[in-house]
């Protein structure tokens, strides 16, 4: 292990840069993931999530900065890193002409496991895969959920210290998704495996991650525990969808003297307030008196989506939902 390694962190990234020609896909990312932690890496499509994860798992060389994973430098000691990480990439990377058992056995062999160890690990992982006799069928016959679970099992076959999951539940139905969540939690809690998880689903990050990093346009826009991030956003939020001049509406809200700040995103106004229940009637009155038509007025506590909106200027939830619908439409048409 490197002499200068701080053993507290399973992943230590400093000043990470990756360019593709003139495009700066990752632009100075710093992040630290403690050993035994689940770290959720959030960002919309094209934000740089996959580029970061490909650099962390030795598939892509960084243009600048340093990456230390499981105590080893990714650039100078990639072989040591590979022995200690498990990876499930965005699309289940499987050979459809092998059976599930054959794929796992090959994976085990490449990690130096003996035949006995490989057979034992496959038996151990069979509950995770939960595909019964399909284990001896060609992977090409598996459903999307079965493939994702097999992919996860392949990433775990050698008992890695750090597990990288790139959007592990994208395209899964809710039941399969919750099973993957359950297993991710169990792997982390019982084995102490550090998990670096990229996702487009805020509820996934909220449910699983001890800490969250939000990447936007190649930069880490915020990081902390979900609670810290939400707290930083404000105690309560009043969301007003208006039809009319938003500047007038903002003036009216600020004029109440009980609103800490207002953000405008299209026709949607988000007002941060101390005690929402006590303030909402004053807000409704102010908007009515301003002459701006209110289509919707909602009071709620902040979510990660609000944090995301604040730090990136766009909502992640809508994009993830759109993608999910378009995938489901595509599957339905197919």
């Amino acid at each position, binding site marked *: 292990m490197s002499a200068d390694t701080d053993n507290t962190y399973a992943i230590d990234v400093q000043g990470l840069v990756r360019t593709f020609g003139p495009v700066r896909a990752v632009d100075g990312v710093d992040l630290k993931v403690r050993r035994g932690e689940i770290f959720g890496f959030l960002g919309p499509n094209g934000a740089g999530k996959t580029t970061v994860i490909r650099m962390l798992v030795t598939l892509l060389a960084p243009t600048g900065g340093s990456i230390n994973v499981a105590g080893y430098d990714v650039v100078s000691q990639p072989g040591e890193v590979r022995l200690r990480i498990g990876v499930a990439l965005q699309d289940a990377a499987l050979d459809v002409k*092998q059976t599930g058992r054959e794929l796992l056995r090959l994976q085990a062999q490449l990690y130096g496991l003996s035949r006995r160890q490989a057979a034992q690990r496959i038996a151990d992982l069979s509950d995770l895969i939960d595909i019964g006799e399909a284990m001896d069928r060609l992977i090409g016959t598996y459903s999307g959920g079965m493939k994702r679970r097999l992919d996860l099992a392949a990433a775990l076959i050698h008992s890695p210290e750090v597990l990288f999951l790139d959007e592990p539940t994208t395209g899964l139905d809710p039941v399969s998704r919750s099973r993957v969540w359950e297993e991710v939690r169990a792997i982390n809690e019982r084995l102490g495996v550090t998990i670096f998880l990229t996702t487009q689903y805020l509820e996934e990050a909220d449910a699983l991650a001890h800490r969250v990093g939000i990447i936007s346009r190649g930069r880490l826009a915020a990081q902390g525990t979900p609670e810290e991030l939400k707290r930083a956003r404000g105690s309560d939020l009043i969301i007003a969808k208006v039809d009319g001049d938003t500047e007038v509406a903002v003036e009216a809200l600020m004029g109440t003297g009980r609103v800490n700040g207002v953000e405008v995103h299209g026709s949607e106004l988000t007002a941060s307030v101390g005690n929402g229940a006590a303030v909402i009637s004053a807000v409704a009155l102010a908007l009515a008196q301003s002459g701006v038509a209110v289509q919707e007025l909602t009071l709620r506590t902040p979510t990660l989506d609000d944090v995301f909106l604040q730090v990136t200027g766009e909502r992640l939830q809508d994009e993830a939902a759109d993608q999910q619908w378009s995938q489901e439409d595509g599957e339905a048409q197919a």
Partner: protein
Amino acid sequence: MATRVTTAEQVQARRAGFLRDIMSVAERAVRSVARDPEITIPAVVVPVFFFFLNIGALADFAEQIPGLDYKAFQLPVAILFAVTGVSRATTVVLDIQSGYFDRLVITPVNRLALLLGLMLADFALVVLLTVPVLLMGFLVGVGFESGPAGIVVFMLLGGLWGLIFAGFPYAIALKTGNISAVNLTFLLFFPFLFMTTLFLPQEAMTSWLATVTDYNPVTYLLAALRSLITEGWEPVVLLQGIGAVMLVGVVSLGLALLALKGRATRH
């Protein structure tokens, strides 16, 4: 859901070793051969077709050349049709496109084993593919002056050529990750196999083609294979054949290794 995965024996990952890596990759490739009959069926049918077509069309004419047994002359050609271009290069492309190649590269597997394992499986396959062609030759009365050992050398030399030629599709597959580009290997197949002593001995050819065949390594390979059938053991001819194949191998395997390095190295 039960999570036995989290309660079971933990294992320690380590490098498996070069030879075990090669055998693991080869084992997968051999397994997939049985599941891809579309690769092996043409390699059996095409040589049989051309063997009988060439004999039917040219035997009477060619055998006017004193001492020429045209069936024996055509058997090595059938062998080359059987083994040239047989590879798992399209599998490599599919692995690249599906992301499975990345999964393999993330493991501690030796990078060279990713290619050599496939080529080892190819070699075993092409040597096996020479068997039905040889049986066909025996059925029509072709015999080996070099005896049983000559038959073994004949099969190995055919297999070596198949292996060496496979370097080209592997190089293209690894470089481009594109199946259409891999299929362009046929642009090499035609000059190698047709601009040589495929149909007639060199002395029966017109001047320009006779000159070209002088520079085609396959001419020397065919001469070596034919010598095992009709002449017995001719060390100089055999060494020229092996040397010509190795010369092509320097180019094809060199390109394949460069392409592998480019693909497996993080850009």
